[in-house]
């Protein structure tokens, strides 16, 4: 590189080289500065972003607790439902689609509808052709199997399992057990922090709703590594990038065991076959536990819980709400009716306690009772009746006589003592309070014009007083057990999913009603007479040999036609409600029951057969279970079975 070889004309460039080197150095220094800025000064920020990019959280689903009856029969469980989706743009309408139609066994109407849906989606702009389109919810297992088998040939078709609540007994006890619904935005906002997400199901009514927080369980989560490309999960890298804890196991929901006996429930349902609408409640008089609650007509919780798709749910509710028989109303708890003559035992107790009547007090019944300028009618001409006969034959005249001498507030007081007019605190479903009208109430209602006739009507259970079937059953339970008013119970225990009992609910006494044993015995003798004496209002309709006591009732209905009822059917809605309330067995009562046949007409004729059958079925079940227990005791488990896992679960 001697100067000699340089040509003179290169000299023009010479002065530029230093500048060029400076420009090069400047350029690279700028890059260097920027690198220091990104990698050192902002390094942590970018590292955090890079980690955020690859770390995702996968939600781990929990399973909702199972609801069982008192004997372990499953009332509500979960099953997978399979929904079929299609990605419209991926489906080959020429080749694949006809196969799908065939495999899914679509009928012509469905085929046409879905073909249109898909072609429309394919033709639509934007992202719609690439979005999953629902073809059908809850397809049969056979179809699922067929679709899975041919999965490779069916591009664009996806089968997605979704857990769905399943009620094996369908309509039976649906009001009490409840059903599920999708969480709405309002509730979602209100339940913030409880782990709900849009699209979650939650208990809508009944036990499902009341015990939601127990049944629901808790979602878990798992941190995962995720990339932009769909690649095999890099689980090998998880320990490197994911901080502990990397996983939170989901907590399955608690199982709930009810006090209800579903077999008894079914028996009652069967004995109510002939009736359109009504309610039956059975409680254990020794504990206040609810053994059965039937509200008729019912509905299928499987349909309204969404297992068969949103459209089915909407249609079902539309139908249910339009029905004048009000299938969605829980008539055992949420509706109050005038008690009719079933109230007479309580009126009698009030009068006896106050000394207004004596068991031997005799009243002349000539088919009615004259009071002031009005004539209050009786159900018949009973002649001379004492208390016992008055109860047995349900003589109104006798109780008009009681009503004339008693203060209406006394009747209300005794009613309240037996739990009428106050919520029982069962906790499931919105509870009707019912009404035990006092003088103050009448004064307010009728602008100060209280009339003695109100008390007369109150004594026979007519007028403004209303009770729920549940209240009445518990009150009869109190009559049966000697005056203990229990708090009704639906849930017996809460268990973990492996069967460990976490919480048990012992019976709770609400109040001891102060009644003299002698007076109570008089009234109860009357109730037994209703069933066993030839004169008794329940005698003729009772199955021979049924060991029970009770009181019939016929509650007058105010003649108001419900909306939307066909005029031809109005007569039905003007018919009286038929009651039969009682307990069994008559001597040492175990259960108390109430039968209400809405618009059933006379209690004796329509409600008693159901009550009588109910008691029969209950006896049978009791016997069956006793013999099953006995035979289980007779055959002790073999030695080999000792260590075997509990196969029954």
């Amino acid at each position, binding site marked *: 590189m001697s100067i000699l070889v340089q040509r003179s004309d*290169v000299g023009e460039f*010479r002065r530029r080289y230093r500048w*060029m080197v400076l420009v090069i*150095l400047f350029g690279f220094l700028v890059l260097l500065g920027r690198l220091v800025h990104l*990698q050192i000064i902002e390094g942590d920020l970018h590292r955090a*972003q890079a980690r955020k990019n690859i770390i995702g959280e996968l939600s781990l689903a929990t399973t909702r607790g199972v609801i069982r009856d008192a004997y372990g029969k499953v009332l509500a469980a979960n099953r997978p439902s399979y929904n079929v989706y299609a990605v419209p743009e991926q489906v080959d309408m020429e080749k694949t689609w006809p196969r799908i139609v065939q495999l899914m066994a679509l009928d012509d109407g469905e085929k046409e509808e879905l073909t249109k849906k898909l072609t429309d989606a394919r033709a639509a702009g934007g992202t719609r052709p690439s979005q999953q389109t629902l073809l059908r919810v809850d397809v049969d297992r056979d179809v699922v199997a067929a679709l899975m088998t041919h999965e490779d040939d069916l591009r664009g078709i996806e089968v997605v399992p979704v857990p769905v609540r399943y009620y094996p007994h369908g309509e039976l006890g649906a009001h009490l057990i409840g059903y599920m619904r999708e969480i709405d935005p309002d509730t979602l906002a209100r339940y913030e922090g409880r782990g709900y997400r849009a699209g979650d199901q939650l208990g809508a009514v009944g036990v499902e709703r009341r015990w939601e927080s127990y049944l629901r369980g808790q979602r878990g989560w798992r941190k995962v590594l995720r*990339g932009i490309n769909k690649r095999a999960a890099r689980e090998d890298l998880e320990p490197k990038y994911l901080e502990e804890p990397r996983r939170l196991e989901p907590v399955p929901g608690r199982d709930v065991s009810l006090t209800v006996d579903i077999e008894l429930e079914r028996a009652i349902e069967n004995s109510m076959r002939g009736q359109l609408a009504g309610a039956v409640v059975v409680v254990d008089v020794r504990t206040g536990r609810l053994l059965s609650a039937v509200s008729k007509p019912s509905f299928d919780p499987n349909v309204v819980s969404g297992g068969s798709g949103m459209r089915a749910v909407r249609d079902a509710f539309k139908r249910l709400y339009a029905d004048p028989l009000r299938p969605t109303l829980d008539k055992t708890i949420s509706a109050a009716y005038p008690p009719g003559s079933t109230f007479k035992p309580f009126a009698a107790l009030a009068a006896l306690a106050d000394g207004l009547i004596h068991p031997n007090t005799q009243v002349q019944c000539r088919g009615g009772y004259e009071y002031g300028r009005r004539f209050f009618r009786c159900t018949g001409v009973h002649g001379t009746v004492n208390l016992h006969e008055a109860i047995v034959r349900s003589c109104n005249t006798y109780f008009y006589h009681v009503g004339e001498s008693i203060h209406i507030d006394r009747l209300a007081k005794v009613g309240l003592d037996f739990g009428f007019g106050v919520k029982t605190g069962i906790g499931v479903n919105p509870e009707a309070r019912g009404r035990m009208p006092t003088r103050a109430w009448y004064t307010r209602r009728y602008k100060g014009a209280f009339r003695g006739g109100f008390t007369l009507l109150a004594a026979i259970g007519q007028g403004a007083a209303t009770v729920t079937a549940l209240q009445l059953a518990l009150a009869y339970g109190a009559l049966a057990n000697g005056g203990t008013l229990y708090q009704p119970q639906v849930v017996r225990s809460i268990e973990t999913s492996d069967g460990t009992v976490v919480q048990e609910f012992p019976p709770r006494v609400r109040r001891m009603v102060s009644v003299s044993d002698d007076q109570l015995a008089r009234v109860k003798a009357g109730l037994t007479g209703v069933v066993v004496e030839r004169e008794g209002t329940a005698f003729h309709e009772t199955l021979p040999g049924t060991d029970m006591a009770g009181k019939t009732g016929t509650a007058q209905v105010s003649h108001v036609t419900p909306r939307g009822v066909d005029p031809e059917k109005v007569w039905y809605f003007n018919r009286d409600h038929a009651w039969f309330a009682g307990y069994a067995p008559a001597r040492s009562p175990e259960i108390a029951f109430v039968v209400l046949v809405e618009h059933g007409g006379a209690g004796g004729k329509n409600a008693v057969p159901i009550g009588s059958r109910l008691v029969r079925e209950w006896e049978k079940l009791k016997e069956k279970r006793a013999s099953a227990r006995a035979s289980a005791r007779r055959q002790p488990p073999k030695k080999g079975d000792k260590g075997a896992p509990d196969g029954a679960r």
Partner: protein
Amino acid sequence: MARGDRISFRGGTQIDMPLLLAIVAVATLGVVNLYSATSVYVDAGKRAALADIYVSQVYWFVVGGLLAMLIAAIDYRHLERLAYFFYVGGIVSLGLVFVLGADIRGSSRWIQIGSFTFQPSEFIKILIVLVVAKYLHDDPKTEPRTLLDLAPAAGLVGLPVVLVMAQPDLGTSLVYLLTAASMLAMTKVRAASVATLVIAGAAAIPLAWKYVLRDYQKNRITSFLDPEHDKTGIGWHAFQSRTAIGNGGLTGEGFMQGTQNQFGFVPDQYSDFPFAVFAEDWGLLGSVLLLATYCFVCIWAVHVASQSKDRFGAAVAVGVGSMFFWHTIFNVGMAVGILPVVGITLPLFSYGGSSVVTMLMGLGLLMSVSMRR
């Protein structure tokens, strides 16, 4: 430079060892980085085609290396005589792109021959270096040049620029302009002419914006100027690239350990953003080393030019050096987020036969000049 550093070649020429070592170093790092960049496509034993492109890249290095050796062996002064001949051939092939061009991602840049596609616009870069060098060689003025004096050179560069813009390929035409401008910057130009050029250039920007640039090109520039505005498309790419580089920190995540790349967040990691992969794997230390090597090659080219025996050699050395320089600055600049994403490759790092072979041919030219100082 001490005599012992040079290996004797026939006719007294000697291989420029520092340049050769620098090239081999960059090329090796380039292939290694490409392996890391595309390892993301290795999936559960099944290797996707892209995971093997580092092998093709090695082939291209072999082809380009042989061509470079051939070019280095030829005295560059022969090329001076043939420059216009090559240039015409290049322009014809550029025209053919519009006739035969394979349309890839919305622009026709490639000509397909058999199973190979090649990109004439890449090779034109060499021809522009040669043709501008010849212009400078043939016009050894010593007084400051006027615009009229520069007109032939402007015409020679302008024609391919127009053709490439029509493909459309903003990045390549930018390289043409910057390379030629860098070469012409070696001469004296009258101050008034420089001023006129600057004013004309400024006036041309709005016009170019309105009539020349395509929407997607404008989009790249707006998203660069306003990164918050566009977090989805090209802005998202730039954002993830910056995140990858920042994630590298001082010492890097380690070879094939960069999460941004391994989990697919670095966009176009084998063509536009290989530097992001490198910086994430090797951190600031590795990046500085790499940039220092690039910087060395650029400065070395100026050094070679300064020692060249004639104007043509000096101009070629500066041309190759500036081509190398602008490629590096633009590519790394867009990876680190200080320049808009215009699709200029990183020399010897980005995957692509045409790019690699062109760069090696250019470096062969530089070597040829260096060997004959």
